[in-house]
C-alpha cells in the first residue's frame, strides 16, 4: 500500500510541493523508505518525511533549496554502509534523506593526468572497474565496495587495506564538487597535485560525514596497475615482533608493501569455526599472524624474489616462525578471506564490543599488552579479538565475553559493560595520544565519546567551522558534534 502524499500543515508545503521541486525520484511510503531509515548494523532507526533521489546535480541543488526554503533538515546518504550511524536520520519530523545513489556516472578519465572524475553516487567497485578498464588502479578498496559510494567514502574518509601505500580516501582526492548547505554549487573539481590558494575547502568537506554540505562529484587520483601482486601469511609471537617485521618489510619492499594486517589467533579460531571453508592454515597455532601484500611494478619473478628474500631474512632473524606464500590468485583470495571474514565470524559468535582505534605505530605493541592486562583484571575472562591495519597503527580492538558467558542469555549483561569497557580501552588510547575512531567516523556512535577526549579549544574550532559552513544546522543534525 502506498501512503498518500500529505501536506505539511506547519509550512503549508509538503510532499506535493517537494515532488514538483525536482526531477528525480521521491520515496515516501513507509515500505519504500524503510531501508534508508535504518543503518547497516541495524542499531539506529530514524524517520523522515521523504527520501529524495535526485537525478542530477542540478536536482540536488533544487532539493537543498527546497529544504532551505521550507526549513527541513538534510541527511545525505550514499550506500548506507557506514559503521557509525551517520547516514541515518534522527527521529524528528522534518528530515529529508538525500540519497545520491542515482547520480552515478563516470564523468571523465584522464590517463595522462592520472585522474578520474566521478559522480558521488558511483559505487567504489564501479570506480575501481572504470580505472581498470583504462589500465589504471584506483587503490581504495573496502569489503563494502559493491555498495558504498564515492560520496560516502569521502564523507567518512574511508581507509581499508591499502592505506599503508596509497593513503586513505582524503589522500586520493584532488577535487570536489559540493552543493553547500545554502544550496549553492561549489565547483572545485580541480585535478591538481599542487594548489596552494588559500584554505583547503576540499579537506574540510572530506571526513565531515555530511554535516557541512553535499558532495556531488570528485576528481580522484589514479595509479599504474602493478605488474604482480603477492600475498603471504606469517606467524609472529607478539605485536612487538609484528612491528619489527613491519620495519623490515618497509625497508626491503619500500613502496611495494601495500598491506600489512595483524590478526590474532582468536580471530582465526572464530573464522575457522564459522566459515568451514576457511580452516586455520597452520597446524601449530601462533598467538598472532601477519598478512602481507606486495605489489610489484616489475614482474612476477621480481615480486617473488623480493618477497621471498624478505621472509627468509625475517625467519633468520627469528621474527617469524613460519609463513605461507600464495602462489595463485585463488590462494591469495583464501588468505584474504581469513582476514575479511573476521567481522562476520565475530558477529556470528554473539555480542561483542567494538573499538576502531589508532595509535602511533611505535606504541601499538605496549598498547596491546597493557590494555589486555587492564581489561582482564577488571573483566576476568573477556577475550580480545584483535586485528587490523597494523601498518597504519589502526586496530579493530574488539572484546568478546568470556567463553563460558558467551551464550545468548548472557548477552544483555555483557552489553551492559559496554561503556565501562569503552572507557578502559579509550583511556588507554588517549594516554598514548591515539584516536578513538580511526576509520569509521563519529556519526552518533562515537560523537559524545570523542568530545570527551578533545580539548575545549579543538571542539570550539570544530563548532566554528560548522557554524561558518552550515549556520542553520541544516546538514545532518546530531552527527559528529554533540549538541
Amino acid at each position, binding site marked *: 500500500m502506498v501512503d498518500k502524499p500529505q501536506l505539511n500543515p506547519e509550512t503549508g508545503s509538503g510532499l506535493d510541493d517537494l515532488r514538483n521541486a525536482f526531477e528525480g525520484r521521491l520515496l515516501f511510503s513507509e515500505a519504500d523508505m524503510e531501508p534508508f531509515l535504518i543503518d547497516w548494523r541495524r542499531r539506529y532507526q530514524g524517520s523522515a518525511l521523504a527520501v529524495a533521489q535526485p537525478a542530477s546535480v542540478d536536482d540536488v541543488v533544487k532539493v537543498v533549496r527546497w529544504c532551505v526554503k521550507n526549513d527541513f533538515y538534510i541527511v545525505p546518504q550514499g550506500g548506507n554502509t557506514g559503521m557509525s550511524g551517520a547516514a541515518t536520520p534522527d527521529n524528528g519530523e522534518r528530515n529529508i534523506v538525500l540519497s545520491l545513489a542515482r547520480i552515478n556516472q563516470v564523468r571523465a578519465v584522464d590517463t595522462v593526468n592520472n585522474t578520474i572524475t566521478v559522480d558521488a553516487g558511483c559505487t567504489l567497485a564501479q570506480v575501481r572497474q572504470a580505472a581498470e578498464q583504462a589500465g589504471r588502479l584506483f587503490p581504495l578498496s573496502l569489503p563494502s565496495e559493491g555498495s558504498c559510494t564515492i560520496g560516502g567514502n569521502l564523507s567518512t574518509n574511508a581507509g581499508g587495506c591499502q592505506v599503508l601505500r596509497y593513503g586513505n580516501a582524503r589522500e586520493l582526492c584532488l577535487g570536489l564538487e559540493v552543493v553547500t548547505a545554502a544550496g549553492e554549487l561549489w565547483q572545485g573539481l580541480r585535478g591538481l597535485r599542487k594548489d596552494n590558494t588559500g584554505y583547503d575547502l576540499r579537506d574540510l568537506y572530506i571526513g565531515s560525514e555530511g554535516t557541512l554540505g553535499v558532495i556531488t562529484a570528485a576528481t580522484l587520483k589514479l595509479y599504474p596497475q602493478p605488474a604482480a601482486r603477492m600475498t603471504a601469511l606469517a606467524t609472529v609471537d607478539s605485536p612487538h615482533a609484528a612491528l619489527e617485521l613491519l620495519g623490515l618489510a618497509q625497508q626491503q619492499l619500500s613502496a611495494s608493501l601495500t598491506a600489512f594486517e595483524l590478526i590474532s589467533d582468536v580471530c582465526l579460531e572464530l573464522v575457522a569455526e564459522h566459515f568451514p571453508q576457511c580452516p586455520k592454515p597452520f597446524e601449530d597455532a601462533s598467538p598472532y599472524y601477519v598478512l602481507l601484500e606486495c605489489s610489484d611494478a616489475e614482474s612476477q619473478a621480481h615480486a617473488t624474489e623480493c618477497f621471498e628474500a624478505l621472509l627468509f631474512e625475517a625467519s633468520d632473524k627469528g621474527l617469524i616462525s613460519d609463513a*605461507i606464500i600464495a602462489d595463485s*590468485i585463488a590462494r591469495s583470495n583464501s588468505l584474504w578471506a581469513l582476514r575479511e571474514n573476521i567481522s562476520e565470524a565475530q558477529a556470528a559468535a554473539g555480542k561483542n564490543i567494538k573499538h576502531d582505534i589508532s595509535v602511533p605505530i611505535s606504541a601499538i605493541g605496549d598498547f596491546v599488552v597493557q590494555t589486555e592486562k587492564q581489561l582482564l583484571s577488571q573483566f576476568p575472562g573477556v577475550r580480545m579479538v584483535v586485528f587490523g591495519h597494523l601498518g597504519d597503527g589502526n586496530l579493530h580492538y574488539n572484546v568478546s565475553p568470556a567463553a563460558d558467558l558467551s551464550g545468548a542469555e548472557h548477552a544483555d549483561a555483557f552489553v551492559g559493560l559496554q561503556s565501562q569497557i569503552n572507557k578502559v580501552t579509550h583511556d588507554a588510547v588517549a594516554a598514548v595520544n591515539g584516536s578513538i575512531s580511526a576509520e569509521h567516523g563519529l556519526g552518533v556512535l562515537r560523537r559524545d565519546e570523542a568530545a570527551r577526549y578533545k580539548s575545549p579549544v579543538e571542539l570550539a574550532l570544530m563548532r566554528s567551522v560548522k557554524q561558518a559552513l552550515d549556520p542553520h544546522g541544516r546538514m545532518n543534525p546530531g552527527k559528529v558534534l554533540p549538541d
Partner: protein
Amino acid sequence: MKILVAVKRVLDYNVKARVNSEGTGIDLANVKMSMNPFDEIAVEEALRIKEAGKADEVIAVSMGVSQSQETIRTALAMGADRGILVETDAELQPLAVAKLLAAIAAREEPGLVIVGKQAIDDDSNQTGQMFAALMDWPQATFASSVEIDGEQMKISREVDGGMESLSMSLPALITTDLRLNEPRYAKLPNIMKAKKKPLDVMSPEDLEVDISSRLKTLKVEEPEQRKAGEIVGSVAELVDKLKNEAKVI
C-alpha cells in the same frame, strides 16, 4: 618407487583471458601465471603417497618456456624432491607433451605418473591418455580416490550416475579430478629448501622427440558480447518485441 607429476604453467584461473591484438592467441604479457589447478592436485596426491611410505621420490616435470621453472619451484616448495624442465619456446600440443613425458618416463622408470585431467588454458584433456597409449600402460582418468597396495592400485572415478572402481597393476597413469584432494600451501621452510633442490633443464632435442604441431590455430576471437537486457512495460510490448524484434514467436 618414483612418481612423476606433470605441472603446467597456465594463465591464472582468476584472470580474465584477453585475446591478443593479432588475434592469434591469448595475451600473456604481464598477467598472473600459476600452476594448473589440476596439477596442484596431482602434486598433492603424489606427496601423500610418498608420505604414506609408498613412494621414495616425487619428480615434478614441466615443459615450455623458461619461466616454467617457477611452476616447478612451486611443486618443489610443496614437497616434490626434484624437478625437470624440458625447455622450449615452441607451441606444445598434447601429443608433443605426451611424447616428451614418455621420453622422460623411459629414463626415470617411475612406477606411477600423475597428471591433471586437463589444463585450464586449452582444456584438451588428452595428454594423460596419449601418454598411457604411448607407454602401453593402464590408465585411470578423472580419479577421485587412489589407493596403492604393493604393485596394485585401486582407483575410483566419477561417471554418469555413480562411481566406477578400477583396479590395475603398476606402472600406470592417473589423471586427477578436482575431488581427489585439497592441495597444501607451500610453507616457508619448504620454500627455502626448494631453492636447493635439483632442477634439470633439457631440450626436446636432448630427448630426441619431434614436437612439431599437428594442429594449426587459424584465429582466436572473443565470444560475441551479450546484448544488454531490456525492461518492457507490459506483456503486450513483450509479445510484440518477441514477435517483431527477436522473431522467436
